[in-house]
């Protein structure tokens, strides 16, 4: 115990001499010889793993052309959601292992917020060797992380992966300075889901909600409200998912190409804010307190529908007794805005290869043969609701199958089609700062604030945080 304490003390004293944040890279080798201390046998394991990884990297180099056939190879992956991302990754591993039985894929379940915390911690303390080979990243955080920690990621542009097969709006999230850093995975194309049985009571059908504008939506919404007393949509107060979806549907962003904030004189944003306010005031939209309450407003039939990324269907489908009562179509478009469409995106994520990946050839080959090359994979994972942004997958039979829950509609095919029409936008490095500031603005506007003044405040907040 004392000995261990001493070694830690030394390590502490050593690191104390380096200013925090300078990315002291010498830290790890200098203390490597301390690892012989028996108390930390786990540490020994870690060191041994490192050595093994080095070995296998050497082997891979030696067998350059046929890297994947080298024995005992392993990829570690960080991702979350056992029913979705982890399931998909394990399916991908199974497919890859058919041709490469020696390759092992170890998935370490890590919630997204923890992925972010660990990534930030590792990158700022110069301990990139604690990262896995592959990690899943929220699309909205991609620009931020790659630009802030360029050393932590591997450029995939020349990895042999064909990025042109993915929806362009989706790939754009992980392209930085013209280089590809991510393999697109799950689809966040926006869908509008409605309870057709409730619409019927107001004399409406799903067609009355297809290819419409927000004005028509509000008009229809009032009819539904009069006839049934149910609002059309619920949204989580203080979150601006709907605002962001509306923005992107017109190809508008909170940032300009040069990275400056585009908030104060953003005409689209003003229209979006006015639309949201009208939705709220007309009673067509109700705000709920939390995500749990949002989900429960769908399962308890408090509202007649919702608009969100297509992944919301999985939550809707938990109400098995509502099967056949739902219909799915595209979202309304903004009125009086250039480039307004009925398509948008919310959420979604992509795979990134870290700079700690010792066997990049294997990682590239793995991703190329699975998420960026196997329609079989996408057919297998459709059962969990994971929809492709990989265009060839949309042509397969599995995607054309009717979905009884949504009235026998071939919803999967529809969504893949939607996703190809989504205008791309600029998330920017400061996406989360801007998003929070706009969320504050919309909350104040709902409570009677002036739109221009609130947007000015939001812009000031973002500019100050960009310092």
């Amino acid at each position, binding site marked *: 115990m004392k000995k261990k304490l001493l070694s830690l003390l030394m390590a502490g*004293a050593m690191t104390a001499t380096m200013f925090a944040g300078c990315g002291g890279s010498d830290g790890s080798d200098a203390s490597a010889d301390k690892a012989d201390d028996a108390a930390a046998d786990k540490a020994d394991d870690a060191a041994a793993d490192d050595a093994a990884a080095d070995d296998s990297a050497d082997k891979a180099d030696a067998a350059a052309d046929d890297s994947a056939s080298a024995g005992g190879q392993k990829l570690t992956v960080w991702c979350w959601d056992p029913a979705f991302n982890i399931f998909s990754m394990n399916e991908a591993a199974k497919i890859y292992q058919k041709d490469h039985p020696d390759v092992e894929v170890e998935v370490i379940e890590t919630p997204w917020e923890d992925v972010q915390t660990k990534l930030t911690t590792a990158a*700022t303390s110069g301990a990139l060797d604690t990262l896995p080979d592959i990690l899943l990243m929220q699309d909205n955080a991609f620009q931020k992380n790659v630009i802030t*920690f360029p050393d932590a990621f591997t450029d995939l542009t020349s990895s042999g992966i064909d990025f042109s097969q993915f929806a362009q709006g989706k790939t754009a999230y992980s392209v930085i300075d013209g280089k590809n850093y991510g393999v697109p995975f799950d689809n966040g194309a926006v869908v509008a889901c409605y309870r057709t049985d409730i619409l019927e009571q107001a004399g409406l059908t799903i067609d009355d909600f297809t290819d419409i504008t927000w004005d028509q939506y509000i008009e229809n919404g009032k009819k539904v409200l009069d006839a049934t007393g149910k609002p059309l949509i619920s949204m989580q107060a203080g979150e601006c998912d709907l605002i962001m979806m509306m923005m992107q549907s017109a190809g508008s962003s909170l940032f300009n190409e040069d990275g400056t904030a585009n908030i104060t004189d953003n005409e689209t944003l003003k229209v979006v804010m006015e639309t949201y306010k009208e939705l709220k005031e007309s009673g067509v939209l109700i705000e709920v307190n939390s995500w749990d309450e949002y989900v429960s407003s769908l399962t308890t039939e408090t509202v007649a529908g919702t608009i969100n990324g297509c992944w919301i269907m999985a939550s809707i489908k938990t109400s098995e007794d509502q099967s056949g009562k739902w219909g799915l179509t595209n979202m309304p478009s903004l009125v009086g805005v250039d480039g307004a469409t009925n398509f948008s995106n919310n959420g979604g994520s992509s795979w990134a290869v870290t700079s700690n990946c010792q066997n990049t050839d294997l990682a590239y080959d793995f991703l190329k043969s699975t998420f960026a090359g196997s329609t079989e994979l996408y057919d297998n994972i459709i059962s969990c609701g994971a929809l492709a942004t990989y265009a060839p997958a949309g042509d397969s039979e599995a995607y054309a199958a009717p979905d009884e829950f949504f009235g026998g509609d071939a919803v999967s095919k529809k969504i893949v089609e939607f996703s190809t029409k989504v205008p791309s936008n600029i998330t920017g490095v400061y996406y989360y700062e801007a998003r929070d500031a706009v969320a504050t603005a919309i909350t104040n506007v709902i409570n009677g604030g002036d739109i221009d003044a609130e947007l000015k405040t939001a812009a000031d907040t973002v500019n100050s*945080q960009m310092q």
Partner: protein
Amino acid sequence: MSKSSSKLSLDKKHNITGWIFLTPAALLIFCMSFIPMIQAFLLSFKMGKGNALKPAEPIFANYSRMFADTVFTQSIKNTFFYLIIQVPIMLILALILASILNNRQLRFKGLFRTMIFLPCATSLVAYAIIFRTLFANDGIVNLVLVNLGILNSPYSFLTHATSAKVIIIIGLLWRWTGYNMVFYLSGLQNIEYSIYEAAKIDGASPVQTFFRITVPLLKPTILLTAIMSTNGTLQLFDESVNLTDGGPANASITMSHYIYNMSFKYVPTFGYAAAMSFLILILVAILAFIQMKVGDKRD
């Protein structure tokens, strides 16, 4: 204990023994807290994002920046609102509960104690979900208030500035009162029960006993809990993140929550985050110093 007896024990040997006793703990705190603290302090004089850091210009830039940061000033106000309202209520309530539960004639003591303690053993995840469910638009609280005729229609508690703060306070009270009660209960065991029996024979009312015996004799423990609660509230994070996510419009965000956002949610600005952390240190230190001055007298 008297001054003269403690003076007697202060010979050199005992003095050294004292130092030896506290060395392991002090050494650990030095390594695990002070070294990182010094690094964070140095960091607070740096500007920039992620790893691209440069010395702040002027040197106190991060410190002056926070007073112009409207979100941060809002978070200071919120945090002090919680501190001023929640800590006194919680400590008094805990003290009352502890003195009731210390009564030897009381039945089912163990059961009551465990039930009142349980909230703080609950994992945060459940506590957050439960509270959000209780205060939802169609939640039980609204249901009761509407049925009693106090409200006409459900009130959206978490989307209004004041009620969101109040819910955080209720959450804190619910979760931490039992926790503080534990210290008082254990502190009460070091008071001879016969004192209470004597007071009873002398005809003292429970209220008199509480103020004349319980409070003075528990002073060291009260000081402990006061400092801990002050510290805990000024560093409040969990409730802000999980109950209200700082909303609506930053009306309930705490300082630590904002620091966390600045470090991990937003593009990391560690220099600024460290500077804000040191402001918290200064605030807690001042308050703790006052509390020590008032309550930490050996007599």
